[in-house]
């Protein structure tokens, strides 16, 4: 299994530990990652809000790069996933849009052909690697840990599937169970982390995070597992901000799901990685770090 590895902007800038865990864990599961060094930003919501055509063209350019590599794309960030998948679907379905994008791309000597798929970490682990292979890779199961999964909005939404009809995000749940931990159901599981309003309306953004955190607290989870680096940032760093503004404290450790998997596979986290969590995880994962 070989993928064009789409890093996006946030991970190299803020969530290095996510990237590192992926680079360490996936090869163990037979996944080979090839970097997309010439890629540009996926054109997330902020850019989509400014101009539609630019969104199409920028995302299409990244897709072209993957096509040139002849590889499907794997993203880590839900925003990148949403943007690239949406555009890929749009251009595949709609020849007019495809021509429009290609006219713009002709400026930079590229042409979108529609030959690759866009996948996210969960798709790859659950769909391509397979849940059994993941289970087998678990050496030190994280038994008994009550985890609240935060799949993030754009894991399912960009497929324009009514997730009302597939509540609970069974793929991520099963992956968490595979590590031996328990994926605890909680109210508003499908609810947004609040991240998208960061820098637009911080107060609202934090209030939403608070609601989410309250729901998680209510169902007595010990840790939150995220897939999207934005969700991670919003719920990890966010807890400090919530504490500062509403002086309401949760102390819920947040981990990237891949870290959970990695610990389950018996790979210890390094000191700097542990420190990169604003809410300390040391007590919770004693002996695994």
């Amino acid at each position, binding site marked *: 299994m070989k993928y064009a590895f789409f890093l996006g902007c946030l991970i190299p800038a803020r969530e290095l530990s996510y990237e590192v865990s992926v680079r360490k864990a996936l090869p163990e599961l037979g996944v080979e990652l090839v970097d997309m060094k010439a890629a540009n930003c996926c054109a997330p919501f902020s850019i989509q809000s400014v101009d539609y055509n630019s969104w199409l063209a920028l995302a299409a350019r990244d897709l072209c790069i993957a096509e040139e590599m002849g590889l499907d794309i794997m993203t880590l960030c839900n925003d990148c996933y949403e943007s690239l998948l949406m555009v890929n679907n749009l251009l595949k379905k709609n020849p007019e849009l495809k021509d429009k994008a290609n006219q713009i791309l002709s400026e930079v000597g590229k042409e979108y052909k529609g030959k690759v798929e866009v996948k996210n970490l969960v798709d790859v682990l659950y769909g391509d690697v397979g849940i059994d292979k993941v289970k087998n890779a678990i050496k030190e199961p994280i038994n008994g840990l009550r985890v609240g999964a935060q799949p993030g909005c754009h894991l399912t939404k960009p497929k324009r599937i*009514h997730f*009302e*009809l597939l*509540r609970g995000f069974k793929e991520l749940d099963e992956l968490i169970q595979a590590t031996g931990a328990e994926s605890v159901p909680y*109210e508003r599981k499908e609810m947004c982390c609040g991240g998208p309003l960061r820098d637009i309306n911080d107060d609202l953004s934090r209030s939403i995070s608070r609601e989410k955190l309250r729901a998680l607290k209510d169902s007595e989870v010990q840790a939150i597992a995220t897939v999207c680096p934005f969700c991670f940032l919003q719920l990890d760093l966010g807890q400090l901000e919530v504490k500062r503004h509403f002086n309401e404290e949760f102390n819920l450790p947040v981990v990237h799901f891949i870290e959970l998997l990695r610990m389950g596979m018996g790979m210890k986290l390094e000191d700097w990685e542990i420190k990169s969590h604003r809410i300390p995880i040391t007590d919770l994962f004693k002996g695994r770090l």
Partner: protein
Amino acid sequence: MVNRAVMVVGGGIAGIQASLDLANRGYKVYLVERSPSIGGRMAQLDKTFPTMDCSMCILAPKMIDCSHHHNVQMLSYSEVKAVKGTTGDFVVTVLRKPRYVDITKCTGCGICAEHCPVEVPNEFDEQLGTRKAIYMPFPQGVPRAMTVDKNNCIECGLCIKMCQAGAVDLKQQPQEEDYNVGAIIVATGFDIFDASQIPTYGYGRYRNVITSLELERLLCASGPTGGHLIRPSDGKIPRTIAFIQCVGSRDRRFGTTYCSSICCKYSVKDAVLIKEHEPNTTVSIFYIDMRAFGRGFQEFVNRAKSEYGVRFVRSSPGEILEDPASKNLRIWYEDTVAGRIENAELDLVVLCPALIPSKGSHELAKVLGAEVDQYGFFKAADLITSPVDTTVQGIFVCGYALGPKTGDIPDSIMQGSATAARVAEVLEGSA
């Protein structure tokens, strides 16, 4: 020589009306009904607007007329399997499912049921009540004969011992019979949209979220609770109740884009009934458009508001959450006229699901070679000029088998009579 025999498929109010009109005219009518008794959906209802007649009370006499009528031969617990021929000369093959009871001997006294040790949920009560493995779906059932539900029967033989008439016969076999008729009338009615397909409302997960048909049974004096409105989770009398309209209706996600036509109206009726049962209950109706069309309904809505204090909220709620401990429900909605997002705690929520084509009607359409519309209801030959003709000559359709063209019971009855006219025209006359 005109073939003055007709087959009516479906023993609901529409089929009954068509049968009686034709029988009174001297036609031989074969009335085919899939379930053990005729009566259809109307038999399940509590009371009917606006006379507030008890539904069964005005239906029962018509049902019995059918069973008495020398021109009506009832083929209950039977299904149409095949059709050959054309107008004036159809040959219909009917599967007579084994009742395991000799209908000519059984008096329906019910002693067998009293002794039957097997108790299962009763479909007629929307699973809220129970029946035995040998049963009559409801006391006024027609024909007045028991039926053995072989899937649940443990063959203990008690019923055979108990039956004075010696009517029970567990060895009965399915039989296929051919009937030669001049015309066919389809009156297969509707089924209910599965509300659990909209998980945000929690039907199937939250016990105090019920469908309107379940409510009818709860309100009905001869229903599982003897007409006492109690909520499923704890048998308490609900003090705060909400109706939610358009559950599956006007919904593109399930292809049920149409308005089911009756939900607004029966909700107002039920709301008023609840107020009459328990005056100090808060009843709210959540709607998008209050479609109280037709004579008397708008006036009824006004009375529900002013006299009974029923609350009307223009809103389609976003979600319902259950409190695991109390099983009370929290409903999130926007009062769109006030522009406020609100939430309220409720004891009971009644969903008003879309009406969809009845099970098996699609197969029937295939057998008949009749076209169905995009929703799966029988297609009228011409929406304006031939509203009760199917696309096949000599085959007619009435009641909800036509889809939401049928606003309510009077519409079904009119269509039933209309098919009778069409049959007479086609068989006796020049059209």
